[in-house]
C-alpha cells in the first residue's frame, strides 16, 4: 500500500506546475518545457484545441440563427458578461456565464472571464505596447503604491524575446514613452488617421497617432511558420479563434509549441483550490486540485509553482492557500495580499465626422483597429490636477449607408445600392488608475462556489482622480478634434463599472520591500520563493498600455530565473 502511494505520488510529481493556460500561463508552459522541465499545466475550464474547437470560425453571418445577437434570456441571466463587447453569438461559448461562477460585488465590478484552455488569449483585443521608464518610475515619482523593483532595461530583452515569437506588428516610431520593439510590418494608418496624426504634430508637437501595435502576423517569419501559423488574413473575426493562427493565442502558439517538446501535461477541468505549503521544508510543495466535473480532489507536486490563473483568480487561490505559517494566505505576512488592485479607466469616448478626404476610403479590414495615441498627459512632469494620464485608441472609417426610409422596390434598390458614408472618427480612453489599499479582494466568509472554494469579494471603485481624468480626456480630445476640423462631435461617459476594461491588475504586487509588497523583482513570493506570480496580479501599477505583452515578458523572464534557481538549488 505504501509502495502504491509512493508510486502514485511519483506519477503526480512534475518539475514545474503552471496554474492557468491563458496568455501568461501559456508562456510559462512554453519556456519551462523548452528548457526540458516536465511541466503540468492546470486549466479549470475545458480543452480548446487550435482549429478543432473553434466551432464558429468559418461561419458566414447568415449561418448564425440570430445573425450575431445574443438571445434575450441569456442576456437576462448573464447581465455582467452581456455587457462585454465581444459577448456575441459567435463567441459566447468562450465566456464564463455569470451564473456559472458567482462572485460578490461589494461595489459594482464587471468581471469578464474566459475559462478554457487558452483563457482570454482567444478573446483579447491583441493590442501590444511596451512599457517605458515613464511607467515603471511612475509610482516612485508621483508618490503612490510602491516603487517597481524593475526598470525598462530589466524587461527590454524579454519584450524582444516574446515579440519575436508571438509576432507583433508595428512601426519603429522613436517615442521614448512607448519603446520600439522587434516588429513585423505595421498595419498603416488610413488617410484620415494619417491626417489626424499630422494635425496633432502641427498643433501640439508632443501628441502622436501611431499605427496600433498588435499581435498579428502581418508578415510571418520562419519562427511563426514553425508554430503552424500563417499570415493574418484580415478577417477581424478573431474572437472565434483563428484558423490561420493569424493572431497570437496560447492555443495557436505557446501551448502546441510546448506540447511538441514532449514535456507538457495539460489537464483541463482542473480547478486549483490552493497551493500546498510544507511547514518543515519551508516551501510550497504542490497544489490541491478539484476536478471541475467529478469534484474529486487530487494533489500534484513540483519544486516550483507558477500562478497564472488570471489576476483575480490568482488572488483567490493565494488567499485560499492557508497554513499555520500563512494563516491569511500564501506569502501574506504583511496583510497586503488582495489589496492595491486597480484597472484601466475606459469610460470616455468621443466620436465625430470628417467631411474632407472624400476621395479616399479603405479596402479590406484592419486587424490592428487603426491608430494609438500614447500617453501625453503628465508625461515629463506633473501638469494637471490629477495624477498620471491616459492613452487612447483612434480610428477613422467610412461605412456603407443604406437609406431604409422607403418600402417596396425602392427599398430593395436602396439596400442593394448603398452609398459610401462620411468619414467617422472615434476614440476611447485608456486611463491609468491608482492602486489604493481600499481597492481590494477578499474571500467570502459564508459563500462557497460549486467546488467548495470561498467566493471572491470584490471592492473597487472610481475615485476623484479618475473623474478628473475622464473630464480631461474629453476636453483634450474635443479640442484636438476641433483643431482637425472634425464636426458633429459627440462626447460620452459610459460610467461603466470597473472590470469591463478586462484589465484588472494587482493584489499580489511586486516591490523591493517584503513589508510593503508580495513579490520580489523576479516575481517570487518574498515569503515563499518557489512560488511565482506573473499574471496581472503581480502589477504594482497599471500605467496605460494594454498589459498582456508585459505579462508575457515578465513570465518568460521569471521562468528563466526559476530554472536558474532550481539548478543552483536555491528553491
Amino acid at each position, binding site marked *: 500500500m505504501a509502495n502504491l502511494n509512493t508510486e502514485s505520488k511519483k506519477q503526480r510529481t512534475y518539475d514545474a506546475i503552471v496554474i492557468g493556460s491563458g496568455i501568461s500561463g501559456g508562456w510559462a508552459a512554453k519556456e519551462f518545457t523548452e528548457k526540458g522541465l516536465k511541466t503540468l499545466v492546470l486549466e479549470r475550464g475545458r480543452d480548446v484545441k487550435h482549429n478543432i474547437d473553434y466551432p464558429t470560425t*468559418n461561419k*458566414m*453571418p*447568415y449561418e448564425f*440563427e*440570430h*445573425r450575431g*445577437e*445574443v*438571445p*434575450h*434570456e441569456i442576456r437576462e441571466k448573464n447581465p455582467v458578461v452581456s455587457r462585454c463587447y465581444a459577448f456575441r453569438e459567435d463567441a459566447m461559448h468562450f465566456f464564463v456565464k455569470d451564473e456559472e461562477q458567482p462572485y460578490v460585488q461589494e461595489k459594482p465590478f464587471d468581471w469578464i472571464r474566459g475559462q478554457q484552455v487558452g483563457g482570454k488569449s482567444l478573446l483579447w483585443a491583441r493590442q501590444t505596447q511596451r512599457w517605458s521608464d515613464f511607467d515603471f518610475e511612475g509610482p516612485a515619482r508621483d508618490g503612490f503604491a510602491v516603487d517597481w523593483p524593475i526598470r525598462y532595461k530589466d524587461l527590454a530583452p524579454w519584450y524582444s524575446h516574446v515579440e519575436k515569437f508571438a509576432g507583433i506588428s508595428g512601426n519603429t516610431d522613436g517615442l521614448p514613452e512607448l519603446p520600439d520593439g522587434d516588429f513585423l510590418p505595421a*498595419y*498603416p*494608418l*488610413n*488617410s484620415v*488617421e*494619417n491626417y489626424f496624426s499630422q494635425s496633432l504634430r502641427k498643433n501640439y508637437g508632443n501628441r502622436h497617432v501611431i499605427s496600433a501595435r498588435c499581435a498579428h502576423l502581418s508578415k510571418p517569419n520562419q519562427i511563426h511558420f514553425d508554430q503552424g501559423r500563417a499570415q493574418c*488574413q*484580415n*478577417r477581424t*473575426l478573431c474572437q472565434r479563434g483563428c484558423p490561420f493562427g493569424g493572431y497570437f493565442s496560447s492555443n495557436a502558439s505557446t501551448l502546441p509549441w510546448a506540447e511538441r517538446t514532449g514535456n507538457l501535461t495539460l489537464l483541463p477541468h482542473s480547478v486549483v483550490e490552493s497551493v500546498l505549503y510544507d511547514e518543515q521544508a519551508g516551501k510550497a510543495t504542490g497544489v490541491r486540485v478539484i476536478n471541475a466535473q467529478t469534484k474529486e480532489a487530487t494533489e500534484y507536486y513540483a519544486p516550483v509553482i507558477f500562478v497564472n490563473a488570471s489576476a483575480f483568480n490568482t488572488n483567490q487561490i493565494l488567499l485560499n492557500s492557508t497554513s499555520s505559517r500563512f494563516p491569511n494566505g500564501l506569502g501574506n505576512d504583511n496583510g497586503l495580499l488582495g489589496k492595491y488592485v486597480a484597472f484601466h479607466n475606459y469610460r470616455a469616448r468621443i466620436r465625430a465626422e470628417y467631411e474632407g478626404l*472624400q*476621395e*479616399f*476610403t*479603405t*479596402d*479590406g*479590414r*484592419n*486587424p490592428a483597429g487603426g491608430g494609438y495615441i500614447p500617453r501625453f498627459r503628465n508625461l515629463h512632469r506633473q501638469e494637471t490636477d490629477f495624477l498620471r494620464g491616459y492613452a487612447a485608441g483612434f480610428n477613422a472609417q467610412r461605412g*456603407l449607408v*443604406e437609406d*431604409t426610409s*422607403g*418600402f*417596396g*422596390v425602392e*427599398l*430593395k434598390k436602396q*439596400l*442593394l445600392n*448603398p*452609398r*459610401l458614408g462620411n468619414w467617422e472618427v472615434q476614440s476611447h480612453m485608456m486611463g491609468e488608475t491608482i492602486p489604493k489599499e481600499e481597492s481590494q479582494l477578499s474571500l467570502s466568509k459564508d459563500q462557497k462556489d460549486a467546488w467548495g472554494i470561498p467566493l471572491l469579494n470584490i471592492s473597487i471603485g472610481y475615485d476623484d482622480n479618475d473623474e478628473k481624468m475622464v473630464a480631461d480626456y474629453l476636453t483634450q480630445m474635443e479640442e484636438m478634434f476641433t483643431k482637425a476640423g472634425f464636426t458633429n462631435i459627440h462626447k460620452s461617459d459610459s460610467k461603466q463599472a470597473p472590470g469591463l476594461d478586462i484589465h484588472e491588475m494587482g493584489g499580489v504586487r511586486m516591490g523591493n520591500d517584503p513589508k510593503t509588497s508580495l513579490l520580489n523583482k523576479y516575481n517570487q513570493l518574498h515569503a515563499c520563493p518557489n512560488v511565482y506570480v506573473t499574471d496581472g496580479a503581480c502589477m504594482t501599477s497599471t500605467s496605460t498600455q494594454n498589459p498582456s505583452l508585459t505579462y508575457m515578458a515578465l513570465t518568460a523572464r521569471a521562468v528563466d530565473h526559476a530554472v536558474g534557481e532550481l539548478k543552483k538549488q536555491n528553491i
Partner: protein
Amino acid sequence: MDRRSAVKGILILTGGLIVVPSCVMEDGRASIPLRHLEVSQTQEKLLAEVVEVLLPATETPGAKDLGLHLFTLDMVDDCYSPKEQKDFMRGMEVFQKITKKQLGNSFQEATPEQRQRLIAEVNAGKAPEEVLAFYSILKKQTIKGYLNSELVMTKLRKYELVPSRYVAVHPVTTASIS
C-alpha cells in the same frame, strides 16, 4: 417531440381551456417552433404578405421567398424582451383589425393595390402607435434578415469572410462601393 401535437394534447386534457389564444386554436399554429409567441397560421400568412410588400420579388427573390417573416418571428421570439414581444403581438392584432375595417377584408385577401396603399400609410407613420411599434420591429428584422441572407451575401452584395488584405488608402471608385 412534435410541438404542435403536444399542444393538442394539452387542449384535450384541459377540455379546451384557454391555453392558447382563440385565433391560434381555430387555425393552428405558425409553422416554426416558437417558445414565447402565440402566432397563428393566419398571422404567419399575414406577415409573409407584409414583408413581401416591404421587399417584393423582382428579378431577384423577395422577402416571402427568403422566409424573412419567419426570421422575424424567430428573432422576436428569442431576442426581444417579453414587453417588446407583447407590443409586437398587440400591434399585429390592431393591424389585422384596422385592415379588416378599412378594406373589409384581411390583408392577405386584399388586392395588391390595397396592400400597397395600406403599407404606404403605415410606413409614413399614419397609423396607431401600436401598429407602428409592430411595423418598426417587422421592418427592422426584415431588412436585417435580407442584408444578412445567403442570397445577398453571396450574390448581390458580396460579404468576404477572408479578405486577405487591408488597403489603408484606397481611392474611391464605384467598384469599391458594393
